[in-house]
């Protein structure tokens, strides 16, 4: 008779699923987070892919992890340290043990703790038996054999049965955290529609896991996390890469320009190419080019032909495209270059995150080659910044670099879906008037006319050589070169009057302003909240436009005794702020290929304020 289990209410929980690449931890984690989102919690996820695709089973470098932080209040990061680890094999514990909260729960699939797997995980003795897991709440669960028992009589092979054990674990976690199973049940129906025997097997495994939680004496408490109070509206869970893709699609619709993506497969940006290649019915053209340079140059061709042209890549790709970005800015064509930053330098750490391409984006070209640089702050913010980058590129006839990073790209969060008609139109006006046309005529924003080849009477030539203003004819004239250099720089500076001012959360003056950019927004926000809770007066500001900086930036910074800039690099925004405004700044630089821990920033805030309340 199942004993009545005590239900404990929690404000927030951080869960991590970990197992072999083949164990389907990414699938389990994303199902758990979709269900959690449906139940109204605020959440943030962080997949931790191994570098290999399929490393040999049981090895530590083959461990794939998925971390989910969910809460009844507003949260912004996937959580510093997991409260609970679901470990499908010894290697999963070996890899993740050092990051768990002290006293964290560990649900371990006891079946896989045999000699071979322990050896592969480089354990001399079984951690479940020797006292090495002292201080953790360890729950050994025979997930493998329980799944096999639940699927007796199925037509699946033993190997296929073993592959269902992740649904058992999912079911168990649904019970433990009082989540409904039906969302996953309907998902299984759709996903395995073509293979009914899998539908049955996975559903049974899921329910077996759930019922096991119910009946076993192993667990005596159950947990519940109330829904968060989110603004009214319809939500879905979305990752940064998907939001980026949808943002450009929206920009294409709102500007009535067909979208062209010239790209080349590179981790962690390939998903954007993959998402967009599905939307042929939006007239989207995705060209997987022969290399990164062909990716951007085909996009430049498309921009010249009158399209919303973008190219997506990561650090090494941006390096290869340097010369072509110079061509785009010299020919003053609208193109958006998306850089999903990853651990560098060079090939670096492809599956890890970092923010170390900022100086390359702002300064990294031969000659005076100014380009607008924007940065998204959260996974769903990628949607807005994709639209903003398109708007600025078109309006000012200039290349725009949009920076995101591996953490935003793969992490997901609930997204309040904007209605199509709420999104502002992007005005585009192709020049057709022959009278007085010249390729480098300037309008109020110093933008030159955009002419679609095929327009009779406006035939003209553009190129990488310096050219005379207005006429666009090749010119070596010294004065003209000076004029064009200043004009191209001024055009980017003019955007200052067209972008929002820097907003401050907290007082406009005080002891400390925590200034960040890009993907550190979540960690800084939570750290500031925690510091305030501890009695410190802390203000926060976050930059989404780095070239040009918002026009009130200096004014805001001058209001504070200390400006603290946390960055996942050796101080690149700090360098820009110092050279622009000659203001001393405090730096927090951690370059570990991982997002900031909230505690790192919180401690630094306190340290800067001398630990005084």
């Amino acid at each position: 008779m199942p004993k009545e289990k005590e239900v404990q209410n929690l404000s927030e929980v951080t869960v991590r699923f970990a197992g072999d690449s083949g164990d389907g931890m990414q699938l389990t984690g994303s199902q758990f987070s979709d269900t959690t989102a449906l139940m109204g919690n605020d959440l943030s996820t962080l997949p931790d892919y191994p570098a290999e695709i399929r490393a040999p089973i049981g090895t530590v470098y083959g461990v794939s992890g998925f971390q989910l932080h969910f809460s009844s209040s507003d949260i912004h990061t996937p959580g510093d340290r997991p409260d609970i680890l679901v470990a499908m094999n010894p290697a999963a514990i070996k890899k993740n043990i050092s990051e768990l909260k002290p006293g964290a729960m560990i649900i371990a699939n006891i079946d896989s703790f045999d000699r071979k797997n322990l050896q592969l995980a480089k354990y001399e003795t079984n951690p479940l038996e020797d006292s090495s897991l002292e201080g953790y709440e360890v729950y050994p669960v025979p997930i493998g054999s329980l799944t096999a028992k639940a699927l007796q009589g199925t037509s699946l092979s033993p190997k296929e049965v073993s592959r269902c054990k992740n649904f058992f674990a999912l079911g168990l976690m649904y019970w433990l955290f009082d989540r409904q199973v039906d969302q996953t049940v309907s998902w299984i129906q759709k996903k395995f529609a073509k293979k009914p025997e899998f539908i049955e097997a996975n559903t049974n495994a899921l329910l077996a896991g759930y019922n096991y939680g119910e009946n076993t004496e192993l667990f005596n408490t159950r947990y519940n996390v109330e829904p968060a109070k989110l603004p009214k509206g319809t939500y879905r869970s979305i990752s940064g890469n998907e939001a980026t893709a949808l943002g450009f699609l929206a920009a294409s619709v709102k500007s009535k320009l067909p979208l062209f993506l010239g790209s080349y497969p590179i981790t962690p940006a390939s998903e954007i190419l993959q998402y967009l290649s599905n939307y042929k019915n939006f007239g989207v053209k995705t060209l997987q080019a022969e290399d990164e340079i062909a990716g951007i140059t085909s996009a430049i061709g498309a921009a010249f032909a009158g399209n919303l042209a973008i190219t997506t890549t990561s650090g090494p790709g941006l390096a290869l495209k340097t010369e072509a970005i110079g061509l785009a800015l010299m020919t003053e064509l609208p193109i958006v270059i998306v850089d999903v930053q990853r651990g560098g330098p060079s090939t670096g750490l492809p599956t890890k995150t970092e923010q170390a391409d900022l100086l390359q984006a702002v300064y990294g070209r031969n000659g005076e080659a100014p380009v607008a640089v924007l940065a998204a702050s959260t996974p769903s913010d990628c949607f807005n910044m994709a639209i903003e980058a398109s708007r600025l590129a078109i309006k000012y006839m200039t290349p725009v670099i949009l920076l995101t990073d591996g953490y935003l790209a793969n992490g997901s969060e609930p997204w309040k879906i904007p209605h199509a008609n709420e999104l502002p139109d992007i005005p585009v006006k192709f020049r057709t008037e022959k009278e007085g046309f010249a390729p480098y005529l300037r309008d109020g924003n110093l933008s030159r006319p955009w002419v679609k080849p095929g327009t009779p009477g406006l035939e003209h030539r553009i190129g990488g050589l310096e050219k005379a203003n207005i006429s666009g004819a090749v010119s070596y004239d010294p004065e003209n070169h000076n004029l064009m250099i200043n004009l191209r720089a001024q055009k980017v500076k003019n955007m200052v009057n067209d972008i929002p001012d820097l907003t401050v959360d907290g007082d406009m003056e005080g002891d400390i302003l925590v200034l960040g950019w890009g993907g550190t927004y979540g960690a800084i926000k939570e750290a500031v909240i925690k510091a305030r809770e501890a009695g410190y007066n802390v203000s926060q500001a976050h930059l989404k436009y780095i070239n040009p900086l918002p026009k009130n930036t200096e004014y805001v910074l001058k209001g504070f005794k200390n400006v603290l800039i946390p960055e996942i690099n050796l101080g690149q925004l700090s360098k820009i702020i110092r050279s622009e405004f000659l203001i001393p700044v405090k730096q927090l630089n951690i370059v570990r290929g991982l997002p900031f821990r909230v505690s790192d920033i919180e401690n630094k805030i306190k340290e800067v304020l001398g630990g005084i309340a």
Partner: protein
Amino acid sequence: MIDNQPKENSQEKIKYTAKDFTSSQDVRWCPGCGDYSILAQVQRTSPDLGFKKENVVWVSGIGCSSRFPYYMDTYGIHGIHGRAPAIATGVKVNNPNLDVWVATGDGDLLSIGGNHFIHACRRNVDIKILLFNNKIYGLTKGQYSPTSEKGKKTKSTPFGSVDFPFNPLSLALGAEATFVARSLDRDPKHLQAIIKRASEHAGTAFIEIYQNCNIFNDGAFELYTEKDTKPDNVVFLEHGKPMIFGKNQDKGIKLEGLNPKVVDLANGEASVNDLWIHDEFDESPARAFILAQFTENENMPLPVGVFRQIKRSTYDKDFHEQIERIKKVKGEGDLKKLLFAGNMWTVN
């Protein structure tokens, strides 16, 4: 969804002249350069290639020949070194109504641009690539290029280059180009005819044009362009015709298995009907490959004309048809449906 091609206005065919295709820019090639003649033949043939002037886009890279777009009164991009075929692919894929032409030199196309060239051929993108082959680097003043003959003495190879050169036509055939031809800068009539054939071809059309650089490689092709040596050293390929050449048309080419041989028609060594009948539309690339290899052995004449032309669907057409097909299947893209998709929940 949005169709960005300008609507085909139905007014009658406007008659162009060469002048219409001449831009206001004064031409800055060195006096005596072969590029002048190629520009002239393009300007003379363009009027009757059946396209609208506003739909023509010339794309080039970096080098002397890449100044070409400035002198054509059409749309044009003077791109960066080696990237013309990639830029042109972007233009064509976007707006298949445009007639996209690439002007490029042997350094621009075969040195830095080699990868983009073989991929454009492989994909059969409907762009016309004119290779101005002068077998030298002109703009950077006289270094050897990937088509310069081995042992060539230049500024960067004062002791003679140690590089085996590319055979541009073999490379194009190796990358499965569907239209491969050669012509000469100093044979205006022939060059005009080949430009016309290329314009009519649906797919990547590659024309190698031997072009004289009179400053750094003067006279490299004299054998094939001077009146007295041309007849004995050039064989004009014509579809369905036997290969005959020579001052008094007394020499021919015979194909024994896979080896071509020059035979004398006058002394009865062979008769006209033993000769190799040129077949431009042969599906297998083998014979075109044999013709391309003529330049590798000196007792064979230089073949000019269309080596091979085969029908294959073009990349840009397939690309567009796929979009149209999916639009029919999935219906026009609806932003609302796009956004409000996947599992959602409402907060109220």
